[in-house]
């Protein structure tokens, strides 16, 4: 890591009596791909919109590329790319017209045709946005997010509504941007997406960060109990153990060779995630 792209201390945002964001600390390094996970209403979007300079905060210190996003300048905006959740604007413009129009807003931009190629829309460059599919429309959003060649890119639930193949292609696109050196902050519902893309993950539940770390080790995942399962006497047997290798050795000896239908599984990111958000503190005291 060389430098800090985003730094957040004690971020708080209330809507009436509800604390949507309740004291969040974050540190995102330059060049990192950082995923924010959490259920609907957990405070993900509020947090990201405060970082993007769209929303006021009640308390806390925030620095994004060295600037407080409460007072966004045009220069700062030119260094930050934003891909919003949903948009249906410029429906009557073609892909190329739209990308060129937004390119002209930046002090210096990427080549529009190159960006269109990068998001895989070269064949649709002359098509009006109205006629694109949902996934193609989303790729236009990404093109507009990166046209100014941002140092930091925010992606808010970028692949909602994608089919599996489109999601894979989208992930490749994000990896390519990351390889170019862009810092990426992404919110998502999809755990496989976080696992596939993110260097680090933060899980937000009820306005607080309940876990933070690399996807592979999140919530003690790597050292958690493994489940060993096999078939014996016509029924499925299953034990949870911290020493699955010893268990398998024991079983191998008992069966004198092949253990029928043997599986050894660690908890998936999804298991860890569901445990985390269900175990989050003071859930019964909160107004809903």
């Amino acid at each position, binding site marked *: 890591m060389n430098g800090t792209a985003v730094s957040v201390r004690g971020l708080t945002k209330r809507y009436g009596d509800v604390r949507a964001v309740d004291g969040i600390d974050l540190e995102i390094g330059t060049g990192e791909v950082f995923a924010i996970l959490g259920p609907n209403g957990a405070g993900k979007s509020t947090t990201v919109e405060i970082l993007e300079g769209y929303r006021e905060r009640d308390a806390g210190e925030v620095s994004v590329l060295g600037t407080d996003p409460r007072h966004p300048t045009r220069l700062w905006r030119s260094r930050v790319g934003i891909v919003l959740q949903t948009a249906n604007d410029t429906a*009557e413009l073609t892909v190329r017209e739209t990308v060129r129009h937004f390119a002209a807003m930046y002090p210096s*931009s990427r080549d529009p045709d190159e960006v269109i190629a990068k998001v895989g829309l070269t064949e649709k460059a002359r098509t009006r946005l109205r006629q694109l599919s949902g996934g193609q429309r989303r790729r236009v959003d990404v093109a507009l997010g990166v046209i100014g060649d941002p140092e930091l890119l925010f992606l808010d639930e970028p692949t909602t509504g994608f089919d599996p193949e489109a999601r894979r292609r989208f992930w490749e696109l994000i990896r390519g941007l990351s390889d170019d050196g862009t810092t990426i902050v992404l919110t998502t519902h999809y755990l496989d997406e976080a696992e596939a893309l993110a260097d680090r993950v933060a899980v937000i539940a009820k306005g607080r960060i309940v876990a933070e770390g690399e996807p592979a080790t999140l919530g003690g995942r790597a050292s958690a109990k493994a489940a060993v399962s096999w078939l014996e006497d016509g029924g499925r047997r299953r034990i949870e153990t911290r020493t699955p290798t010893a268990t398998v050795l024991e079983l191998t000896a008992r069966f004198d060779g092949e253990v029928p239908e043997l599986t050894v599984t660690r908890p998936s990111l999804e298991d860890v995630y569901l445990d985390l958000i269900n175990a989050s503190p003071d859930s019964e005291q909160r107004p809903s």
Partner: protein
Amino acid sequence: MSDTVASTRARAVDREGSGRLPSIAASGWGRAAVETKMFFREKDAVIFTFSFPIILLVIFGSIFQGELEGHVTVSQLYTAGLIGAGVMSASFQNLGVGIAVDRDDGTLKRLAGTPMPRSAYFVGKILSVLILSVLEVAILLAVGVVMYDLNLPTAPGSWLTFAWVFVLGVTASSLLGIAVSSLPRSAKSATAVISMPFVVLQFISGVFIPFTALPEWLMRIASFFPLKWMCQGFRSVFLGEAGASLELAKSYELGRVALVLSAWMVGGLVLCLTTFRWKGRRDG
């Protein structure tokens, strides 16, 4: 973190542009081009904005023929009134609905997230409204001349009056349109919310029905709004001195026209600056 745009990262990407933030004028011009292009590609909007005054002129001009006092023809009267309504349609109605849609479909939010100066959005809107208004007026005049023997004024003074009534009217109506765009809760309701007051205003401002035929309380209400004064200004241009006797005050009161339209410009600007929302209601 560096304050300069030229980032320290070594990047293998081609970059375009000057390296300086684009000016408001350049950004506003870019917006105007895009706004106008989108407008003409959206057939419903074109029909909605343009055809209404033109169809009404054709209908009214065909139904009510003949002359009023002082050799003023009814079709002349309607041409002047419908130019006022046409200008208001291209500015007030077009912007009121269009900006409500922009707020709903993500246009405003996306623009707010770019380095574009926010004023460029309004510069673009007003430039595109000017283009539309000039077109609308040209078509209405053409219909008037070709179908209803409208005599265009020859005196330069009349065209000067036309120019300032047009500019003040477009500006005041545009600012009001921008202000009123915050009223509709969503794009779906925008057409209904914005069109209703506009239709009422047309009926009480002397567009369809001679102003003098209205009961006094309606006249008072209409005199508060800009459309009545715009139409009065346009009548002075196209009906000439002969038509002045048809006015309530037996004069076109051009001084008051200028005063009321200017007052609405100031009021509209204050409303815009105090009430404009860059976010939709869903965005909180």
